[in-house]
C-alpha cells in the first residue's frame, strides 16, 4: 500500500494535524532562539560532521577500544548481529539474574529490535518510564515523534486514560498527571531488578556511555536496579570524551531548544568497590542490525552520523502533516525515510523515499550535515532500478513512461509533436476554462486541484510570431 493511502487517516484527522503543527512549530521556534546564542553554530556543525565521519571511518578500531575500556571498568560487552540476537542476549541476562520485571527509559533501539514484545512473551514485565512512553504504553500505541512520543494525545486523552487505568479522580492537569506517573513509577524503579536504556553516545577512549534526558527516569534505571543493560547501535561510538562538547552543544538546542537537558549521565562501568549505590552489573549490547550494510554503502554510511535530535522531523512539511505513524516503521520524518530502507528493508514501505518534495529544509537543520535530499534521490534511483528488497509497485510502468518522456524530450521535433498531442487531449478535458479531471496516470493532480487549460499557443510559437518575438 502506498503511503498516499496509509497517510490519509492522519490527514483527515484535523485534531492530530493541529497538534503536530503546533508542537513542531513551537520546537522550531525554541530551536531558533537557542541557536541564536551560539554564533559559532555553523562551524560546530562542520566539526560534528567531521568527527562522525572520522569515527565511522575507523569504526572497527573504536569499537574494540570501547569494548576494552568497558570491560576494564567492570562492565560486560555483548555483540548482536541482528534484532533477534539482541533480544536473546537481553533475555539471557535477565534469566541469569532472576529478573522478573524490567524498567526502561526511552530507547529507539529497543523499538527497532522489538524488545518489549519479546521480553513480555518471555514472561517478563516491562515498564516504560519515560512519561510520554509510559502514556503510550498504557494506551497500547506506538510513539509518533522521536522527542515527544505521546504528542498525538491531548491532555484530555491522557486524563481519561489515567482515570481508566488507575481509577482515581479525573484530572487533565499535566502537573497532576505527571505526579501520578511519578508515584506509580517510583515503586517500579525500586522493585525492578533490571534497568534497560539506550545510549546517545559511547566513548571509545574511556568506555563511557552517555545518556541525555530531562525527567530523571534514565538515571533511575541506571542507578536503582542491580542490573543495567544499555542497548547501543554500533554507529554511536565516538573517539574521545572531548568530542561530546560538540554533540552536547548541538543536540539539546536542536531537539528542544534547551542549552542542556536536565541530566546528562556519563556512565563508566557498574558501581566501583566502595560505592554505596549504583548497579552491580553493567551490560552494553552493541547492535548491528543492518548498520554494517549501511556503512558499506557510499551514500547511506553518512546517514549513520545521525544523533537522533528530531529537528528534521520538526521542520519537515510532510511530517508535520502526516505524523510519525504514516512512515510505517520505527523511525519517521526525513531521517526515517533513510533509516527505514537502510535498517528495515524488508518492511519499510518501498515508496518511502518518494514521499518528499526534496525541499531541503531538513538538511538545513541537521546538526551533522547529512545531505538528506541527496540520499533520498539515491534511494529513488535504487528503487526505480529494481535494486531494492521490496518491489516498488508500478515500477516498470513508471520507468517505461519516463523513458518515453525522455525520448520525446530529447528531440525538438518529437517534443513539438507530443506537445500538440497533449494540447488536444487537454482541450478534450477542458470544462469551463479549466481542466477539473485529468486521465490516469495524472489523475492524482486533479484530486485536489484543477489543471490549467492549454494556452492557445506555446511560448515558442509566440516568440516566432508575436510583436516582441525575435527570430533566432
Amino acid at each position, binding site marked *: 500500500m502506498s503511503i498516499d493511502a496509509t497517510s490519509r487517516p492522519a490527514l483527515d484527522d484535523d485534531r492530530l494535524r493541529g497538534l503536530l503543527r503546533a508542537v513542531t512549530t513551537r520546537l522550531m521556534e525554541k530551536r531558533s532562539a537557542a541557536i541564536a546564542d551560539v554564533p559559532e553554530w555553523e562551524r560546530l556543525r562542520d566539526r560534528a560532521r567531521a568527527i562522525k565521519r572520522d569515527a565511522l571511518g575507523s569504526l572497527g578500531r573504536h569499537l574494540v577500544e570501547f569494548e576494552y575500556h568497558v570491560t576494564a571498568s567492570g562492565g560486560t560487552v555483548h555483540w548482536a548481529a541482528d534484532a533477534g540476537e539482541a533480544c536473546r542476549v537481553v533475555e539471557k541476562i535477565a534469566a541469569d539474574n532472576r529478573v522478573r520485571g524490567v524498567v526502561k527509559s526511552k530507547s529507539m533501539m529497543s523499538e527497532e529490535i522489538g524488545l518489549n514484545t519479546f521480553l513480555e512473551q518471555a514472561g517478563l514485565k516491562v515498564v516504560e518510564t519515560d512519561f510520554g512512553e509510559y502514556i503510550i504504553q498504557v494506551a497500547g500505541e506506538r510513539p509518533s515523534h522521536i522527542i515527544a512520543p505521546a504528542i498525538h494525545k491531548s491532555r484530555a486523552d491522557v486524563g481519561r486514560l489515567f482515570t481508566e487505568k488507575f481509577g482515581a479522580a479525573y484530572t487533565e492537569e*499535566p502537573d497532576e498527571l505527571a505526579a501520578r506517573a511519578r508515584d506509580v513509577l517510583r515503586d517500579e524503579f525500586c522493585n525492578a531488578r533490571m534497568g534497560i536504556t539506550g545510549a546517545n553516545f559511547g566513548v571509545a577512549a574511556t568506555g563511557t556511555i552517555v545518556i541525555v534526558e530531562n525527567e530523571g527516569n534514565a538515571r533511575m534505571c541506571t542507578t536503582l536496579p542491580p542490573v543495567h543493560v544499555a542497548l547501543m547501535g554500533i554507529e554511536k561510538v565516538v573517539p574521545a570524551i*572531548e568530542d561530546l562538547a560538540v554533540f552536547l552543544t548541538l543536540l539539546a538546542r536542536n531537539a528542544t531548544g534547551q542549552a542542556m537537558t536536565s541530566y546528562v549521565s556519563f556512565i563508566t562501568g557498574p558501581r566501583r568497590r566502595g560505592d554505596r549505590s549504583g548497579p552491580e552489573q553493567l551490560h552494553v549490547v552493541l547492535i548491528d542490525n543492518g548498520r554494517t550494510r549501511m556503512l558499506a554503502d557510499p551514500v547511506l554510511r553518512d546517514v549513520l552520523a545521525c544523533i537522533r535530535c528530531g529537528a528534521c522531523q520538526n521542520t519537515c512539511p510532510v511530517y508535520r502533516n502526516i505524523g510519525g505513524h504514516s512512515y510505517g516503521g520505527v523511525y519517521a520524518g526525513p531521517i526515517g525515510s533513510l533509516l527505514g530502507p537502510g535498517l528495515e528493508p524488508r518492511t519499510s514501505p518501498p515508496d518511502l523515499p518518494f514521499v518528499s518534495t526534496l525541499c531541503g529544509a531538513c538538511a538545513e537543520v541537521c546538526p551533522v550535515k547529512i545531505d538528506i535530499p541527496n540520499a533520498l534521490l539515491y534511494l529513488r534511483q535504487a528503487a526505480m532500478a529494481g535494486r531494492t528488497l521490496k518491489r516498488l509497485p508500478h515500477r516498470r510502468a513508471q520507468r517505461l513512461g519516463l523513458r518515453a518522456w525522455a525520448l520525446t524530450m530529447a528531440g525538438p521535433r518529437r517534443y513539438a509533436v507530443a506537445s500538440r498531442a497533449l494540447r488536444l487531449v487537454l482541450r478534450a478535458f477542458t470544462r469551463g476554462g479549466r481542466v477539473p479531471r485529468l486521465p490516469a496516470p495524472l489523475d492524482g493532480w486533479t484530486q485536489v486541484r484543477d489543471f490549467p487549460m492549454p494556452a492557445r499557443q506555446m511560448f515558442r510559437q509566440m516568440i516566432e510570431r508575436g510583436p516582441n518575438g525575435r527570430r533566432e
Partner: protein
Amino acid sequence: MGEESSRDAVLAGVRRANAGRPAEEGGRVPWPPPPQSGIALVDLFVARAEAAQACVLVVSGFAEARQRVADILAKAAVSQTVVSDDAWCSPWDMSQLSQEHRSRPENHSRSGFGDVIASATCGGGSVTRMAKASGAGMTCAAYGIADSGTIVVCSGEAGGRVESLLPPLHLALLQATDIVPGLPELLAALHGDARFEKSSAVTFITGPSRTADIELTLTIGVHGPKQLFVVIVAQGGSRA
C-alpha cells in the same frame, strides 16, 4: 550464533565496509574560540541556571553557606536530609549544619528541619533507602559550566549518586573557582580529573527534572528532584 562469532561477524562487516576507503580528507575542523563575553563566569552561571529553573545563591564563605542551606531546609520543612561525604566534610563542613543552626538565637525554640545524616553512616545498600525517605539530598559539585548553568556531580566513594536523584530537593554545593566557561573546558578538565576516572557515574545537572510530554506543557519535577538549589561560595561577596 554464539556471541564470539557475533563479535567476529560484526567486526568483519565493519572492516569490509571500511576497506579500501581513503583516509578521511583533512583534519578535524578546529573548535571555534568561545565568544568573548565581559560577564563574570559566576554571573553567567547564575543567569543560565536560573533560566533552567534552578535557585542559585552566591555567598562569600562556607559558614554563610551553611547558614543559607539551613534556611532553605527550614523553609521547606525538610524532615530528613542525606548528605554525601564531600559535603559533610571540610571545607563545606555540613556536619556542623544542625548545631550551628540551633545555636543561632532566632532558632532556639525550633530547628525547622529534621535530621541531617551523613550517607557515610548508612550501612551498605541503605543509602538508597535513606535517600528515598529523605526530603532533601546534599552533594558537592565538582564543576559548574557557566554557559549552560550546569553543575557536574562526580559520584563515587563519597556518594552523591542517589543523594542527588531520589529526594525531591537537591542542594548542590559549588565553589566559584570550579566554574568553567563551557563544555570544551569542562570536558578537558574532566578528562584529567582523577574523580572522573574513579567515578562510575558523572552527572551533568541543569535545573530540576522536567517533562513536556503532554501538549508540550512544561511540568517541573517528574522522577528526579523537583527543586534544585545551587549554593556557590565566591570570594567577592554574596548575592541573592
